[in-house]
């Protein structure tokens, strides 16, 4: 049984076809890797936006905290003012004991005279 002699033209065409197929396959793989890079950008964008949102929330919280601290401060000032006012009243009382009445401003003048 004799085998047919190989056709060189046909073998060359077959080789070229296989090479073209392989190149096309590799190009597809390369493009998929490129697309994976694009997907990583989209994921990174989502992560950065999340971070931005978190930071904005934290900043807003810190700002509201400052406002609350400001309110506390003002109430502290109110309390301090109240204490000072009470002191004034106490000194008024002492002055009135010594000088038998009169305002706290006029009391020393009265006692000197």
């Amino acid at each position, binding site marked *: 049984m004799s085998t047919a002699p190989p056709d060189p033209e046909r073998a060359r065409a077959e080789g070229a076809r296989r090479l073209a197929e*392989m190149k096309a396959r*590799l*190009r597809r*793989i*390369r*493009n*998929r*890797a*490129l697309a*994976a*890079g*694009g997907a*990583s*950008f989209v*994921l*990174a*964008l989502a*992560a*950065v*936006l*999340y*971070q*931005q*949102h978190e930071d*904005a929330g934290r900043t807003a919280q810190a700002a509201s905290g400052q406002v609350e601290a400001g309110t506390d401060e003002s109430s502290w000032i109110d309390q301090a003012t109240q204490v000072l006012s009470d002191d004034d009243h106490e000194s008024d009382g002492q002055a009135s004991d010594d000088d038998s009445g009169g305002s706290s401003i006029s009391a020393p003048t009265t006692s000197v005279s």
Partner: protein
Amino acid sequence: MSILADTTAFWVTSRAAGIAAMVCSSAAVTAGLLIGLKAVKTRTAELRAIHEGLALATLAAIALHAFVLLLDPWLHPSLGDILVPFAGDYAPFWTGLGIIAAWTLLALGASYYVKDRIGAARWRRLHRFTALAWVLSVGHALGAGTDAGAPWFLASMAIVVLPALTLLIVRLSGSEKAKAPAAPAAPAPRSEPVRPARPRAQSLLRPPAA
């Protein structure tokens, strides 16, 4: 949507592009080192295609990272601040490292397409500097990155950077071993005849002279 509507849109896009560049470059370095170390015996052509695709994605992301910064109204850098290392005001050292890394990656990446002109051996020697540029870019990301302190950023960096770093250490230690001179052989006992060293490479590659 309010985030995108305000002026931080360019800054956000640039950050995302920088992170994408970091991820893609680390994956590309991993693929390249796997090829170089011959760690993958089959499908090397496919791995090479992945390496090329990731490298192209890295270059695109770097270009976007830099170009979008030019439009940022808050930082408002000049073209020189973006292109010249250590010229800008924003974190000059770390940004400078990033600019050097970007130029090196661009030059070495583009050199692949003129490999035939510069010679395969010379190109391969040059291509090794890609790893150095990648190390500089990791420094840039950690030193100048706005999100460098965020857990998600550090976790994603660890996932992509550590494998590449491990392979790079393996590669470097391997090449150091290859460079190191062979340890002097212990003196043979006098009773045994000393055999002349066979020129192995020559005997394998060249047929014996007639």
